[in-house]
């Protein structure tokens, strides 16, 4: 069956921009998430400097985060206003995180 035909019919709710992914697409995203987690765990066991390891782990984590938010939580397909609300919360959390860490000179040692 063509993938386009498999796409699940989205509920007819206001603010819903497009159809949600099919079950097959969800499984594909799930497998990618599993592989990325495997890479994270493998990377943590490699004998590499923190300057390489830590950014690598952060990048893998951000990719996983975005895959879940965009595909499983449907922000890629839903009205952009939902994304704006969530990004506002994330930006607030990131700002809080940076202010706390800078205030206590975590970066300066």
């Amino acid at each position, binding site marked *: 069956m063509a993938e386009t035909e498999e796409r699940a019919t989205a509920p007819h709710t*206001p*603010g819903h921009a497009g159809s949600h992914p099919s079950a097959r697409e969800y499984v594909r995203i799930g497998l990618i998430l599993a592989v990325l987690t495997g890479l994270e765990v493998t990377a943590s066991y490699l004998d590499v400097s923190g300057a390489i390891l830590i950014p690598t782990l952060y990048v893998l984590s951000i990719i996983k985060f975005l895959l879940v938010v965009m595909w499983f939580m449907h922000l890629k397909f839903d009205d952009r*206003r939902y994304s704006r609300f969530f990004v506002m*919360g994330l930006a607030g959390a990131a700002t809080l995180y940076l202010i706390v860490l800078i205030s206590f000179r975590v970066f300066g040692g």
Partner: protein
Amino acid sequence: MADVAAPAQQHDEHQTTTGLPNTKLAMWVFLASECLLFGALISAYVLYRGRDETGPFPSDVFDIPYTSVSSFVLLASSLTMVLALAAAQKLDVQRMRLWLLTTALLGMSFVGGQVYEFTLFHEEGLAIDTNLFGTTFYTLTGFHGVHVTVGILMLLSLVGMSIAQRLPPDAAFPVEMVGLYWHFVDIVWIVIFTVVYLIPTPAPGG
């Protein structure tokens, strides 16, 4: 064999004053506020990381392979959650119940694993008041565990309501709302797993 109900009907029950369903908008605003809660808890953990003079230290107690399995379990539960939603959107009630129940069971495995992990850590001398690591670690992961537990209760409630036929014919909307919450606890764990477990902790007292 799956129960396939009558074709989906348009529902005008989604109240809105903004063009978006109020319930879904409220859920996203709630999740945005939860970002601030977990942002604060993660900041506290990072702030005090490596500042303890006395152990146990993270390297003394963490079992990365064990926690990796827990992470896989939680990620798998996110997949089964969206499969439940896909089934609900196709009005396949039996399959929706099956995936919701599977998600709840995977969530229970995760929480059970966390309780077991906490028990081991406690036996190794790490209590919530032992040192800064114990305080920030148990507070952060404990709050997350409570969120997963609430999610499990919501999932089981959905299954119960479905069996009691108290869900609307188009059950996709409530399943989607519970799913948003469930995926949120998953993305929080994605961050916790990296920041707390995988990123190496500086040397004690450093």
